[in-house]
């Protein structure tokens, strides 16, 4: 195993409930807003799954979206890169501004949105017929970001390094991406997303299919990436949210089955002094 992992394991996990005066977390409130969500509703057919969510997501930070199953966390995340509408009969309304541009403006090409906002899924999904190197380089090549062999090789190394995978795969770049372990596949998918040079990285329960060691590697990686990217992570794992995120948004399901935002704030405060009773019940395990 590489050094990072060992370190991650030896460093005591940050407590589920960090001290409220945690200096790192509380000073990071007023960064520039990268994503501005206003009154976002999402539907499957006539069934509403997300209701009236407004939320500001600041740059170069990690925002965790937590909440029980069915609270619309993943749907909300998928609304951000317009992946929600890919599902038949699914639609979203409201305003989602990315650096001042309304992503739902009629002139906006959804494919362009997805190129500038990367997404990592619950199930690692490297392209099975492509080599490890091609998994990283091909999408960038197809989207016209790079040309030529040298550029490809450079990009592959750079992204795999950034995804903390390079040392493990540098001698087998031409093997299939499907030959890697689950955790490696997930980091390959992160490298693939980074190859398109996005500013935002959306992660939909990226560790739920991984073992604890691979989970720690991904969490460590997220912390490393935080300086250069805006990361939004949906997670079922409250310890994970507490460990990695700067801010936390808590969603829950209303009586009508649609998820709504209960409260959002610095992670330290949400986990120690939630303003809402619902949040407190959920994080202390008294929910449902």
């Amino acid at each position: 195993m590489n050094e990072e992992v060992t370190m991650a394991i030896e460093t005591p996990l940050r407590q589920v409930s960090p001290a409220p005066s945690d200096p790192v977390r509380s000073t990071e409130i007023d960064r520039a807003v990268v994503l501005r969500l206003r009154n976002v509703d999402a539907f499957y057919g006539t069934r509403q799954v997300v209701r009236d969510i407004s939320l500001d997501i600041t740059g170069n930070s990690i925002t965790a979206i937590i909440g029980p199953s069915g609270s619309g966390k993943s749907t909300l995340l998928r609304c951000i890169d317009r992946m929600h509408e890919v599902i038949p009969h699914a639609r979203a309304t409201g305003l989602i501004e990315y650096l001042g541009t309304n992503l739902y403006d009629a002139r906006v090409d959804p494919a362009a949105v997805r190129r500038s906002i990367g997404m990592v899924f619950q199930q690692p999904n490297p392209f099975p017929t492509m080599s490890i190197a091609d998994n990283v380089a091909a999408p960038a090549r197809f989207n016209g970001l790079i040309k030529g062999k040298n550029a490809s090789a450079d990009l592959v190394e750079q992204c795999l390094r950034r995804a903390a995978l390079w040392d493990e795969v540098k001698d087998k770049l031409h093997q299939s991406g499907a030959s890697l372990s689950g955790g490696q596949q997930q980091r390959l998918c992160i490298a693939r997303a980074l190859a398109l040079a996005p500013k935002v990285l959306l992660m939909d329960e990226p560790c739920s299919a991984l073992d604890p060691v691979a989970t720690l590697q991904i969490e460590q990686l997220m912390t490393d990436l935080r300086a250069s990217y805006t990361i939004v992570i949906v997670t079922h794992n409250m310890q994970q949210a507490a460990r990695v995120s700067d801010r936390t948004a808590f969603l829950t399901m209303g009586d009508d089955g649609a998820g709504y935002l209960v409260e959002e704030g610095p992670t330290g405060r949400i986990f120690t002094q939630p303003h809402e009773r619902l949040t407190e019940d959920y994080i202390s395990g008294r929910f449902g």
Partner: protein
Amino acid sequence: MAAEYGALLTPTSSARRFKANLVVVLAVVATAIALVPLASVFLFLITRAVGVLGIDFLLQDPPGDLSAAGGGIRNAIAGTLEMTTLATLIAAPLGILIAIFDTEVGGRLATGTRFFIDVMVALPSIVIGIFVYSLIVVAQGHFSGFAGSVALAAIMLPVIVVSTEEMLRLIPRPISEGARALGLSRWRTYASVFLPTAVSGIFTGLLLAVSRAIGETAPLLFTALGNNFFSTDMNEPMQGLPLLIYRNALNSAFPAARDRAMGAALVLVLIVLAFNLLGRWLVSRRKPGRSTGR
């Protein structure tokens, strides 16, 4: 507690075991029954045709009079290979594109196409032959290898569409969502992700279609017609193995014709066999993926 352990130790009742074994035996018997005609046809062909087969049989054209002994089936082998190749070149791209249309576009139009394709699968091949006859032979005023190819393509098309659609539907959703989330165009997604992922299945469907078309007689009767001479000109009537077998078998009162039909039949079977083996080998050595099959 004791009762539960007891249940584990009690032997399975003999009636139950008998039933379980019976199902296995029935399955084995059914398989054997299914294999009997296949094996017997093959054995019959080999015993009847092995004396006929030889270099001359493969490299000479048949005599003008089919009751005469000697000659070979070179023109029929060449015609079959040529017509089937052209038919594949017509049907494969078209069929794969139709399958992509059906899975990708969906909606009422795709439902219509799918219904049409289903009807086409069930269409008797002689009807396809007559259709192509009225469409091409009548329009051109003469029989031709080209018309034969079109008729064979019409046989292959629905098989290719159905099998390709099936394979495209099997692509795991995480893979297709991954491609979407990278902002790849639909065309790019199919060309570089979906088709390579599904290629072995699509190829198998293609082989199935070729195997079916290569042995079809009826669609060729009114289109390629047959030709006693060697010809590779697609604008002229063309001989094919099934046509040669058909004409010679009709005259099986003549020993020479009967032998020629047997030999040609064995050659046809061997071509199909070789084709399938080649195809499987090509699929199995494909680089680099060797996906876990998921």
